[in-house]
């Protein structure tokens, strides 16, 4: 298990490759990557604030729950905070499992928890102003399936 919260960019390709390379007994690896998308108003940058004391612990709790709930061999979470430009990668998760259903479900479970239960807050700086991103009801609802 590897959980990293950092302000600098990460190398998605290298992380994905080294995670998958380490999984000799696992048949299935799933990755998810979140990317800063442009918005209709024209996104200048996205700023992510987090709760330093709590973030790492919360992510470890979710990762451990994913490990036991699904048949996962390994979990990786990398999540950035600070300022990002459109096109930059915000975060990634990776899961490894003997079979694909567990790898997919583990990754979706982690993402649903990251979206609504990990202490990160996104702010969008557009050409027309600055706004905290509102939580989406669909993200809260997604937790209901677990």
């Amino acid at each position, binding site marked *: 298990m590897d959980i990293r919260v950092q302000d600098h960019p990460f190398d998605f390709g290298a992380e994905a490759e080294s995670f998958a390379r380490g999984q000799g007994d696992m048949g299935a690896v799933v990755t998810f990557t*979140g990317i800063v998308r442009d918005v209709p108003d024209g996104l200048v940058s996205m700023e*992510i*604030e*987090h*709760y330093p*004391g*709590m973030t790492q*612990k*919360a992510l470890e709790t979710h990762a451990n729950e994913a490990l036991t709930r699904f048949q996962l061999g390994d979990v990786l979470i990398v*999540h950035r905070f600070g300022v990002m430009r459109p096109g930059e990668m*915000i*975060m990634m998760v990776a899961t490894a499992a003997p079979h694909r259903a567990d790898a997919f479900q583990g990754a979706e479970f982690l*993402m649903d928890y*990251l*979206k*609504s*239960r*990990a*202490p*990160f*807050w*996104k*702010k969008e700086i557009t050409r027309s102003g600055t706004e*905290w*991103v*509102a*939580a989406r009801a669909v993200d*809260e609802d997604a937790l209901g399936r677990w």
Partner: protein
Amino acid sequence: MELLYFAWVRERIGLPRETVETEARTVGELVEELKAREERYAAAFADISALRVALDQELADFDAPLDGAREVAFFPPMTGG
């Protein structure tokens, strides 16, 4: 007791953290104390259904008892991922 504020809660109150002395027994009572203090607190806590709270870095409810908590954090719903 250490109070922490994040995102627009921090912006409305105007500071990221402060230390308070309180007799409040629950999160809810603490919120009422803060709202009575100053307009900016009243504004930040106007609608607690739009807020989340963590006691000692664990998510909690607004009716949770405060006893023993050293750190109380208030923030909007999280938007990670």
